[in-house]
């Protein structure tokens, strides 16, 4: 090789170098930061470790700070009692558990949603889930006078399911079937319709607004332990379907015709994916209210690391979702002591600058 470089005119050699560098950079962007199964599994372990640290923080930090030693004691020693033990077992652990479930669901649902719509704005809320849940919760407050988070759960979940089914039914009924664009448009139309109904009630009834404004922010606080167990089965099924759906998404990313040619049942893949998104987002929204930012942003961050392969993207998004949600929740407990900032607000305030920096720093790998 050295002889060849010597023979080539320097100008040409320089240009080739530049071109090669540009090509390598492009390739790097397309494939993400980590490639090769070994590094990616390593990254997954790293994320898992981060998630464990976030859990520990979430149990230890709060209005009442508890040392990590005490946390460990409360977790391992059933005989340990006292105020700290009560706080940890009755408040912090259920809350952390809920955070894990919700972060996991929203991250995974976001990755699936962006894969199915092939749209960087594909937020899980786009399927009408958040709008359906909001409408149902407003209905529950306005008509039935229910005002506790645990009372909202099943209304929110039913509303989320109905919203999603309506979007899918309308989005897939046109001539082209369930194309990404028709789904996204049906989703935004039905969401707008439902939000209009919500606003109509809120504008005319202050009492409903008074309860609803605290639900709609999205928060992990004030949720008792039963809520996590109530939504757990739905999230479990949703995660399972998501793992099944991930390889199919890689094929669908090539375009529906190519995917069909390669033997993928396109409608089946869509139905599985959308069922999974609905279960995950519906359960998360039912438990905590609409938390918007995670599903939208986490997949972009994950894609920068893994590239567009959904078999990696889905687990990475899930774990990143957990880390992001728990850290945001902890930050929310600390910044305005003794009060609390709801996790939905912290996520936007902390997550957005980070996200913008990421968008600016590197060209995100496209969908």
């Amino acid at each position, binding site marked *: 090789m050295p002889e060849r470089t010597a023979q080539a005119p320097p100008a040409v050699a320089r240009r080739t170098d530049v071109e090669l560098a540009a090509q390598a950079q492009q390739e790097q962007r397309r494939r993400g930061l980590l490639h090769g199964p070994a590094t990616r599994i390593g990254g997954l372990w790293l994320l898992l470790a981060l998630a464990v640290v976030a859990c520990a923080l979430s149990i230890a930090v709060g209005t009442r700070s508890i040392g990590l030693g005490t946390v460990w004691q409360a977790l391992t020693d059933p005989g340990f009692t006292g105020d700290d033990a009560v706080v940890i077992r009755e408040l912090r652990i259920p809350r952390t558990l809920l955070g894990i479930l919700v972060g996991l669901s929203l991250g995974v649902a976001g990755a699936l949603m962006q894969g199915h719509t092939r749209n960087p*704005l594909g937020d899980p809320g786009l399927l009408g889930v958040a709008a359906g849940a909001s409408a149902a919760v407003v209905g529950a407050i306005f008509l039935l006078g229910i005002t506790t988070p645990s009372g909202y759960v099943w209304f929110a979940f039913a509303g989320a399911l109905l919203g999603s089914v309506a979007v899918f039914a309308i989005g897939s009924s046109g001539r082209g079937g369930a194309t990404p664009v028709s789904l996204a448009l049906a989703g935004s*139309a039905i969401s707008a319709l439902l939000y*209009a109904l919500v606003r109509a009630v809120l504008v005319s009834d202050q009492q409903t607004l008074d309860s609803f404004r605290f639900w709609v922010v999205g928060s992990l606080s004030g949720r008792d332990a039963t809520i996590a167990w109530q939504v757990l089965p739905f999230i479990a099924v949703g995660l399972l379907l998501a793992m099944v759906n991930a390889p199919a998404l890689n094929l669908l990313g090539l375009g529906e015709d190519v995917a069909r040619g390669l033997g993928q049942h396109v409608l089946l893949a869509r139905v599985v994916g959308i069922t999974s998104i609905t279960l995950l987002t519906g359960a998360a929204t039912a438990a905590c209210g609409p938390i918007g930012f995670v599903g939208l942003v986490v997949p972009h961050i994950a894609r920068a690391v893994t590239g567009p392969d959904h078999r990696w993207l889905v687990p990475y998004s899930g774990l990143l979702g957990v880390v992001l949600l728990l850290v945001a929740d902890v930050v929310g407990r600390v910044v305005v002591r003794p009060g609390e900032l709801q996790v939905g607000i912290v996520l936007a305030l902390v997550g957005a600058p980070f996200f913008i920096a990421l968008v*600016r720093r590197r060209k*995100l790998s496209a969908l």
Partner: protein
Amino acid sequence: MSTTITTRGPGVRTDRRRVVRIGPVSGVVRTRQLLLPVVALVALVLVSAVSLGRGDYPIGLADVLRTLVGIGDPTQQFVVTQLRAPRIVVGVLVGLALGLSGALIQTFARNPLASPDTLGINAGASAAAVAVIVVGGGTSGAAQLLGGLGLPVAALVGGLLTALLIFGLAWRKGVDGYRLVLVGVGLSSVGFAAVDWLITRSTITDAAAATVWLTGSLNARTWDQAWPLGLVLVVLVPVALACSRQLGVLQFGEDTARALGVRVGAAQAVVVLVAVALAAVSVAAAGPIQFVALVVPQVAVRLAGGSRPPLLASALLGAVLVVGSDLLARTVLPVALPVGIVTAVVGAPYLLWLLVRGRRALS
């Protein structure tokens, strides 16, 4: 002089196209694209005329015409020229601005989900306006300053600042549509989080006032709001329409556009800035009326055919939607709801119907 060509490729269904040749000049005449703005304009005039006469105090069409030329009965004169006319004019202008702005942004970003909301105008304007409502009543220096600013100015400044910030953050040797939209999404979520936070911290009365503003309303609009809005539109609408050709070329992607002789950076900057300014003045005048900028261009492109939202037709249809919704809100509904609710209730089913009937998928 004219021939009809029908193209039918495998799996492709193309409309009949009428080709007109006059001497050496020839072009395709797309009847629907030419007809749609005319139909929309006629509809707009009709809806506005009906809207002038209808309300809690109905006035006959003859009397409306008489007041317009200044020979009506004084009460009617007052109702028509001081109460209803400014409201309708603001509605028309806001609708024009939103429809046009949405069409520009969706064409620029090549994304049917993009709208001025995506560029943070609504988020910034809402955060500023809700801050004025919630904090502006206080006694501290900052509160006084906010209160003194007034709602429309605060909204305008908030919206423009946010949009410029997004534009600046997304600028790296030019604006990439994808990056602009993503930065917009990020910064918008900050704005809306601030809105939610302010609303949870406020008294319930302030929260209710903020909710009404956030819905978008034409209540109690006067000529004071109509004039500045009209002036801005007189400047910006021709600029936007003049961009039409560049927008068409930009659709093919930046490289192709550059090769075809479009100054890409300049064209993109003009398009985005015009769209942002249009959306910002409309938010300042009527609050963030939902859905118009998002849906009207999609409805227009489905009605007119073609590969991108038609600018003029989108603007006119936007105006029809806003004024028509306001008319419905004032006359048919039992409670006077803000117009922002009705635009969604009227517009959404129509878009859904178009989707279900779906002549073809548009992407």
